[in-house]
């Protein structure tokens, strides 16, 4: 069982810091309309409806709310990409959280579904969206139940559907369930899936579904956490929002820290100023590495992010700074590896994930990911040669040509190569299969050298019976 102070929010730890999206997590019945009403629920919607849609839209733009799905694009700006005079427009909520290490949208949907619904309504009002589809990852049975129940309550109370709160504003919210595919988290794949197709990302351009999205119409795709911030912004104003965090990274964000820390958990942190050191070692957060061990490496922004080591602990949660240091903040997921970690095996688990989740549309990802998985598996099994290490880099070059971002390392005398990479695939799944093994081999070459046989010394090739699983 979870050690969290709130058993209904497993892994969540509050603290002495601002709470914007987790303010109701302390209540075991926060998912009910009754509790939501008692704690200021739907007041953001009322405040929004008292203004014009353009005013609400400006308020969101002024808040500089950054998208929480992974790319970190300003939400208000994204809404502005809808072409003039093309109707209808749709809202698609991306609740397909499945980036390795990421655990926040599920909590937001399970613990405070009305806050998400209120956010959806505010977005639809501000951007003139006619219908909302709330796409929840299929594997989240409890979130599905909670959101379905909350939607029913909100319909009955007049918050969703025709003439919301007696105004001209009306919108339906349709709960849609996925069926298990990581790549569907990519927004154009999400739209394909919602159209009843295989969840394969669409060729770009057009770059933004805001221009051409669901059924070819302008479509806003926003992450659950992004939308969950809107009730606060609508109710308290953008100034109250930007008062928290830094100018370029305002507000708070939810970060899940997992792996070898003393207290893994989900924390709502002050955006922009909190550093990885605060998070990993702070008493209010993870309280250091488990068993007093040393930190070996950590993944700063979900499985797709290049790895950091202790050299990067003082970097704050600020996109450009993480980018200059060779990685990204992604979806708010930190995975920590202590000194006991078998680095090649850890990299293998991520390479396997992305190889497995390739949708098969782009050849470099479909073939390259599979070959990376086989090569790394062979090395971890002890059958690899030094030639395999070079082959991994060669395969990687076919997915991410040119310089590959990585962190600096004082120990190895390495300078950082800034994020992002170049890519030969439509979406980030292909490069993400290469990122973990590239990071691991770059930052811990000795761990791989110790595992492989020098080709010149090799005498026989073992014949494997059965799979390498």
């Amino acid at each position, binding site marked *: 069982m979870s050690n969290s102070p709130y058993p209904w929010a497993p*892994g969540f730890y509050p603290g002495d810091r601002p709470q914007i999206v987790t303010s109701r997590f302390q209540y075991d019945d926060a998912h009910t309309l009754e509790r939501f009403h008692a704690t200021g629920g739907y007041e953001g919607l009322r405040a929004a409806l008292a203004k014009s849609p353009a005013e609400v839209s400006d308020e969101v733009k002024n808040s500089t709310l950054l998208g929480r799905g992974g790319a970190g694009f300003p939400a208000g700006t994204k809404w502005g990409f809808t072409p003039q005079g093309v109707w209808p427009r749709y809202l698609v909520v991306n609740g397909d959280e499945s980036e390795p290490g990421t655990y926040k949208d599920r909590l937001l949907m399970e613990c405070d579904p009305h806050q998400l619904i209120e956010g959806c309504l505010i977005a639809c009002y501000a951007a003139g969206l006619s219908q909302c589809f709330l796409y929840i990852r299929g594997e989240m049975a409890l979130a599905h139940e909670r959101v379905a129940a909350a939607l029913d309550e909100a319909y009955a109370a007049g918050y969703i559907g025709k003439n919301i709160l007696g105004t001209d504003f009306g919108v339906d919210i*349709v709960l849609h369930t996925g069926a298990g595919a990581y790549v569907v988290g990519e927004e154009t794949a999400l739209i394909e899936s919602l159209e009843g197709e295989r969840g394969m990302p669409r060729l770009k351009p057009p770059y933004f579904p805001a221009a051409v999205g669901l059924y070819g119409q302008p479509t806003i795709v926003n992450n659950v956490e992004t939308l969950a911030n809107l009730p606060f912004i609508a109710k308290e104003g953008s100034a109250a929002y930007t008062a928290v965090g830094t100018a370029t990274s305002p507000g708070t964000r939810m970060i899940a820290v997992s792996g070898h820390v003393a207290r893994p958990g989900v924390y709502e942190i002050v955006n922009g100023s909190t550093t990885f050191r605060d998070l990993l070692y702070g008493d209010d957060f993870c309280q250091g590495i488990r068993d007093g061990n040393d930190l070996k490496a950590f993944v700063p922004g979900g499985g797709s992010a290049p790895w950091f080591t202790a050299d990067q602990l003082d970097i704050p949660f600020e996109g450009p700074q993480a980018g200059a240091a060779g990685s990204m903040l992604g979806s708010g997921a930190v995975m920590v590896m202590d000194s006991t970690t078998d680095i090649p095996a850890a990299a293998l688990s991520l390479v396997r994930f992305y190889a497995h989740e390739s949708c098969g549309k782009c050849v470099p990802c479909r073939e390259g990911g599979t070959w990376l998985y086989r090569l790394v598996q062979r090395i971890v099994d002890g059958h690899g040669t030094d030639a395999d290490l070079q082959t991994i880099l060669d395969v990687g070059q076919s997915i991410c040509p040119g310089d590959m971002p990585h962190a600096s390392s004082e120990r190895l005398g390495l300078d950082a190569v800034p994020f992002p990479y170049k890519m030969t695939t439509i979406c980030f799944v292909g490069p993400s299969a290469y990122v973990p093994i590239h990071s691991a081999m770059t930052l811990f070459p000795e761990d791989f050298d110790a595992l492989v046989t020098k080709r010149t010394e090799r005498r026989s090739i073992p014949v494997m019976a059965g799979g390498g699983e």
Partner: protein
Amino acid sequence: MSRLSDHNVIVAKEIIARYPKKKSALIPLVHLSQQQNGYVTDDAMRHVAELIDVTPAEVYGTASFYEMFRFEPTGKYLINICGTLSCQLMGAESLMHHAEHALGVRAGSTTPDGLITLQHAECQAACTEAPTLQVNYRHRYRVTPEAFDDLVADLRAGKLDGEIPPHGTLGRNRQHIPADRTLGAFHPDDVTEGPAWIQVTPA
């Protein structure tokens, strides 16, 4: 027999009506059929195809892309053990090893009594509570070998029937949109003007 029941056809039509285009209901309807039959049958896919005016091949084409759809009989309980990094770091491999021995089957197979299917799975969005598993997509956290054995014993004894519905049932409740509240689906061919509330925006 494995076509959708009369009751489920009514549910299916309610779901279809929510979407501007019928094909969008494909995944929800395949879920519905899996809820009814425990897995996705050929007849059910033909029936879904009839309901949304596509070919059975299109239904299979989409459904076979997604991991939650199973096309062969599956245990009443599907146990998915996560093996992605956070869980791997916290002992997922030994948990899987234990599970295979405890159940007497390899991952990917079903126990001889047809009760439990064991599978490898990828990230389940519970990374801080590793290692995790899901039984019919309901989480179990920080799973020790003992906790796994207790879980299996409880499942076998039927003690968790109230909490964990049989495989195929996603939610014990389902969204219901009241007819008097809905605006209906917005089909791009039928709607060319902006919504009423946006028209008042000053130019």
